[in-house]
């Protein structure tokens, strides 16, 4: 799960990581009010779950409260990479001498949290990593031992020469590591970590992604979820305990298992079709899930055919078939449905569906081709 910058900064501040003063606003009047309260130049920053906000014009500097109000008007309601800005963060603008990068990510390869720091932080950090990887310093931390102070110090020495700033950065890295574990993050990131003319080291930006598997024990963090910032159909799918990614094509797909769902998407494209989504109904076989899945897919006006591809293991084909019958009874089905059910209790499923006379397929490739053919027929 992603949380907004202002929420991440709240978690940082609670852990003792220095962040600029700031407050959030949903309208331009409030933006002005915040700027007046600080009585200093401010930054107005769009709060959306997407990278490259600054480059898209969602992060701007305002000298006066009046200028902040105008920026608030511009940025609130703005569309950044398909997402509407509903909230802005107004923070005191800091004078910046240098921009560094500090991030901690769960690394699959080493199966450890890896801390990455670079003295060349800022908006072009990915380019720095790609072109001059020697400028990125990495450390895989042994989770059983934890991060030792000397390790944080070594990393900080690669960022700053001034020992005062090294100490501040080392302290920030230690605290960032503790936040990573405390909130069950899969990623924590400060970009940029800046130095001010007064010699202070501050986290100017904050990013935290939370491991979805740990949300059950992270109630406070889970409550930070901003449903308005997500694709509505994906929200509905999550509430129905389905994994769903919306795409732009016209063939709706209902599949069990992520790997097979992706493979089905690949094959639809391979045989000349365009998938409308990737929808994984997961491992358990609950007929209600099938109905929810059909509902979500039918809400997409682009859908011309639906392909149901189930390879039963822990999922029982007869349960899926019962769900389909319920869906046919409850929903107004205006598009053809191709069914490919194989595996556990397959024969029972076929008996349940026999009266419906649906187009069926025995193989994965056959089912995909059939769905593409039917989607192409004018209705």
């Amino acid at each position, binding site marked *: 799960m992603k949380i907004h910058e202002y929420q991440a900064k709240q978690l940082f501040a609670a852990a003792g990581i220095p962040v600029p003063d700031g407050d959030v606003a949903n309208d331009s009047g409030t933006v002005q009010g915040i700027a007046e309260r600080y009585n200093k130049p401010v930054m107005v920053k769009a709060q959306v779950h997407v990278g490259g906000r600054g480059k898209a014009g969602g992060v701007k500097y305002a000298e006066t409260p009046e200028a902040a109000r105008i920026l608030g008007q511009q940025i609130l309601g703005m569309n950044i990479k398909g997402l509407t800005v509903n909230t802005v963060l107004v923070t005191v603008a800091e004078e910046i001498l240098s921009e560094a990068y500090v991030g901690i*990510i769960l690394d699959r390869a080493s199966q450890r949290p890896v801390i990455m720091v670079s003295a060349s932080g800022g908006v072009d950090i990915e380019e720095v990593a790609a072109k001059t990887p020697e400028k990125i310093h990495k450390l895989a931390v042994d989770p059983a031992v934890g991060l030792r102070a000397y390790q944080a110090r070594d990393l900080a020495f690669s960022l700053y020469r001034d020992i005062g700033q090294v100490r501040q950065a080392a302290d920030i890295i230690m605290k960032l590591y503790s936040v990573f574990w405390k909130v069950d993050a*899969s990623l924590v990131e400060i970009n940029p970590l800046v130095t001010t003319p007064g010699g202070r080291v501050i986290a100017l930006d904050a990013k935290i992604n939370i491991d979805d*598997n740990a949300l059950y024990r992270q109630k406070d963090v889970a409550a930070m979820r901003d449903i308005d910032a997500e694709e509505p159909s994906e929200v509905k799918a999550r509430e129905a305990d389905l994994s769903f990614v919306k795409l732009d094509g016209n063939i709706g797909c209902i599949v069990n298992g992520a*790997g*097979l769902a992706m493979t089905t998407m690949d094959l639809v494209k391979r045989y000349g079709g365009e998938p409308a989504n990737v929808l994984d109904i997961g491992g358990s076989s609950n007929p209600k899930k099938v109905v929810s899945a059909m509902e979500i897919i039918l809400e997409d006006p682009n859908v011309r055919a639906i392909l149901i591809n189930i390879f039963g293991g822990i999922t029982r084909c007869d349960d899926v078939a019962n769900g389909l019958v319920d869906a046919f009874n409850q929903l107004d089905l205006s598009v053809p449905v191709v069914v490919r059910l194989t595996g556990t209790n397959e024969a029972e499923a076929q008996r349940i569906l026999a009266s419906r006379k649906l187009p069926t397929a025995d193989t994965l490739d056959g089912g995909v081709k059939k769905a593409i053919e039917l989607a192409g027929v004018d209705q």
Partner: protein
Amino acid sequence: MSVFIDKKTKLIVQGITGRDGSFHAQQMKEYGTNVVGGVTPGKGGTKINGIPVFNSMAEAVKKTKANTSVVYVPPAFAVDAIYEAVDAGIKLVVCVTEGVPANDMMKAVPYAKSKGARVIGPNCPGLISPDKSKVGILPGNIVKKGPVGVVSRSGTLTYEAIWALTCAGMGQTTCIGIGGDQVAGTTFIDCLSAFEGDSATKAIVMLGEIGGSDEEDAAKFIKKNVTKPVVAFIAGQTAPPGKRMGHAGAIISGGSGTAVEKIKALNAVGIPVAGSPTELPELLTEQIKKSRKKSTSSKPASRRPAKKKAAARKKAARRPASKKMVKKKAAKKKTAKKKTTARKKSGAKRKR
């Protein structure tokens, strides 16, 4: 032969009284797995489908001499179940449970290793050695005994690929689903290494997906250490970009993780990647033919460091064994009979 599990596997089912646990305990037992017990705290002393239930892993292992466990307990308790199994002396813990926090696994996996135990999963379908043992949820009716080792990061995609192999008459030594979580107890490399060392395995099918660098790492490992023919499939070849984790994801992977990168890495070490799982058997047949040709002519020097040449020659001498694979195909009807006798044997073993 097979890898990780066989007739010597004595299994405890952790969470045996739950919905999934009880269903799959029964399925495994029917398949012929030597299920010696189950654990549910508070249900000790009872029986479920004739399988004795214990209160703790320590007690279960002491009474049954089990060497393997499978975890079906809910996500909030799954990591504890892994620790409990390892501390009781279990050497192979298969965690089927989905939704286990990755941070917990980061600590549990090295702990298990330090005690000489292997964890497979979490969020995995488990593994099956046809006609010998099945641990997890893989459907027993889609596999068939034979010479192909299958390893996969996926669940149902694995079934699809196994089914394609079985339909083409290509049976399997062991099929392993390692799970797709961030922190997996067993990796592609662990399985590739095991298949390379297993004399019954003559060829390997590897099923990957987008994300991470497991497939790239596997490609590097295969180039150095695997002499057996390998073919692969990568799910998510047409996935739209954008589902990524901030800058850090891009920085750490150095641009790898996409299907294009993975296919390139695999092709570069001579591993063909199928366009559909149904094309895997054909691709594997071609790859076996190619490797046989290679083994009759001399191996290209560039592929092998000088030190390993002697070993390579030995292996090359063993190569003709792969011809048996074709013969086995002809004899596939026999396996059905074998299955029933194998099950009878395992039944007898249980009674003892």
